[in-house]
């Protein structure tokens, strides 16, 4: 086919809009609108004064940065921000390390009961968090973990989902690479760290991103396990702006807007890996 002919065909294709495509675009547009509207209102509300909060216009009549100044000058916000950062980062690092270590072991080593161990880990995915909260709480209470970082973090330090994800990815790493390293004299831990891990970077990125975001926005368990305001994570802290008599929406929205910054940074920096990782893992955000 000549270049001219292809151009003509392309033009013909683009001028002929198929009904299926119109439906798809419409649905995507509606979906996009549903997703972005709360975000826009969050930013809009953060720029409004307390009196304007119930004025539902998207563009504030008198935009102000007062809320940001108030939130940032309030020492509690910074503390909650740091708490969330410590919790989310620690849990993420822990998941990347332990999930992949266990996933690698299940994928690449033959041992009696391997399948049973995998099934046992996988079966925990079927237990809803709500059911686990009471045992977690009792455990934390008895071990003195209530109102501590460790108390917030321990249930998520290793996850069945992450282990499953990493196992699936490690299975795609050809054994020849690992055996070549074995012949070259590396021990099993170094083989995992130096050879296998760099070969599953997309999966590691996806796991890191989802773990970080999940823990950054976690609300239910931190709300239960933490009692002192100085140990609140950001979502729990922001919810404290809603007191019985009044809900300070403008403050909550400002805090929430600031809280999106790390997630935006994570997305912007790791965008390439997110798309690749999600595609490879067949994950949904």
């Amino acid at each position: 086919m000549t270049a001219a002919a292809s151009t003509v065909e392309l033009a013909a294709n683009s001028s002929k809009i198929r009904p299926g495509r119109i439906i798809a675009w419409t649905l995507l547009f509606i979906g996009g609108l549903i997703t972005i509207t709360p975000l826009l209102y969050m930013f809009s509300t953060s720029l409004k004064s307390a009196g304007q909060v119930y004025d539902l216009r998207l563009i504030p009549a008198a935009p102000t940065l007062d809320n940001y100044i108030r939130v940032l000058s309030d020492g509690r916000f910074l503390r909650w921000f740091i708490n969330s950062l410590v919790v989310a980062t620690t849990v993420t690092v822990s998941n990347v390390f332990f999930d992949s270590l266990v996933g690698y072991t299940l994928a690449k080593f033959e041992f009696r009961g391997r399948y049973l161990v995998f099934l046992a880990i996988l079966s925990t995915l079927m237990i809803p968090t709500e059911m686990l909260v009471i045992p977690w709480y009792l455990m934390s209470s008895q071990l003195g973990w209530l109102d501590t970082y460790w108390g917030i973090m321990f249930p998520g330090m290793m996850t069945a989902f992450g282990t499953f994800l990493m196992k699936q990815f490690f299975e795609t790493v050809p054994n020849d690479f690992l055996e070549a390293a074995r012949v070259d004299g590396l021990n099993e831990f170094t083989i995992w760290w130096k050879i296998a891990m760099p070969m599953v970077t997309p999966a590691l990125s996806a796991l890191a991103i989802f773990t970080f975001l999940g823990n950054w926005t976690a609300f239910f368990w931190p709300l239960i396990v933490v009692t002192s305001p100085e140990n609140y994570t950001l979502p729990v802290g922001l919810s404290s702006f809603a007191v019985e008599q009044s809900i300070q929406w403008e403050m909550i929205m400002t805090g929430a807007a600031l809280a999106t910054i790390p997630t935006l940074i994570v997305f912007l920096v790791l965008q390439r890996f997110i798309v690749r990782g999600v595609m490879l893992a067949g994950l949904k955000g």
Partner: protein
Amino acid sequence: MARIELEGLTKQYGRVTAVKGIDLAIEDGEFVVFVGPSGCGKSTTLRMIAGLEDISGGVLRIGSEVVNQREPKQRNIAMVFQNYAIYPHMTVGQNIGFGLYTSGLPKAEKEKRIREAARILGLEELLERRPAALSGGQRQRVAIGRAMVRNPAAFLFDEPLSNLDAQLRSAMRIEIKRLHQRLGTTTVYVTHDQVEAMTMADRIVVMRDGNILQVGTPIELYDNPVDVFTARFIGSPAMNLLPGSAKDGGLTVGGAVVPGIDAGKLQTADVLVGVRPHDLTIGEGNGGGIALTGVVTAVEPLGAETLVHLDIAGTDVVATAPGRIVPAVESQVTARAAPGSLYLFDAKTEKALGRL
């Protein structure tokens, strides 16, 4: 460098015995090729030598030491894999140097060895490149480089050329052969390609169903195969086999009587007569031997000669026509085999009975 000795080496997977107590001594500096069809146990044997598979029975010695229980890293061997196994996240230089990761050598010495290996393999210009930017042949050279830098007691190659195209495979065969001549390191090479085995080996080990069928130099195996399997496996195109019967004091093959045979001396009446395509030529003979007449079913002109496929008494036979002679399909031709070029096998046991 080292001598490698296999004594009753056995590998079992559950109830299946993949390698059935094989004995073999590979001499210091020798290039030994294990050849056989898929599932014959050749790769398993190599992996047992490497320490990547546990040994179920028997003794394995490298040098003079029994290494059955030793980890791969303690055996001082280097292995090159079929899919190259060069790490995609490292540069060529890092890949080659990875063989020295646990060596404890000073950095300068490592650098020196990497440069030397790269120079020998023609990879000097590519040291900073990633494997993704290399051709198949270059990747294989990197894998060989990684094995070389360690100065191992033995090189193990597991079908290293299988992923390359025919032209590159041919070039790499020569490179590996030259490398062996240069380094003189004991080499064990596994392939299912008999051409690789014939062209590279000092000695070939033919395996089938976990057993060693025959060990010998390429020419020994070509000239004196011990059975039908080895006879057909070694040599390209494969040896023709025609059913023959010894009766009435003579041996009849494809309607022709083989002269000078005392059929009474044969231990069996049912035999298979083998003749290599290059020993069965179309055209006038010099007398003696055997003349087989058949119908041409296909021709493969190769330039210097033509492979002629014949139907001789219901058996497909490949013969050669010299020079530019290309017989017409459907025509009737006579192919002649010179005296001494026929192989005789027992039809039941498939064991060799001798040459005619």
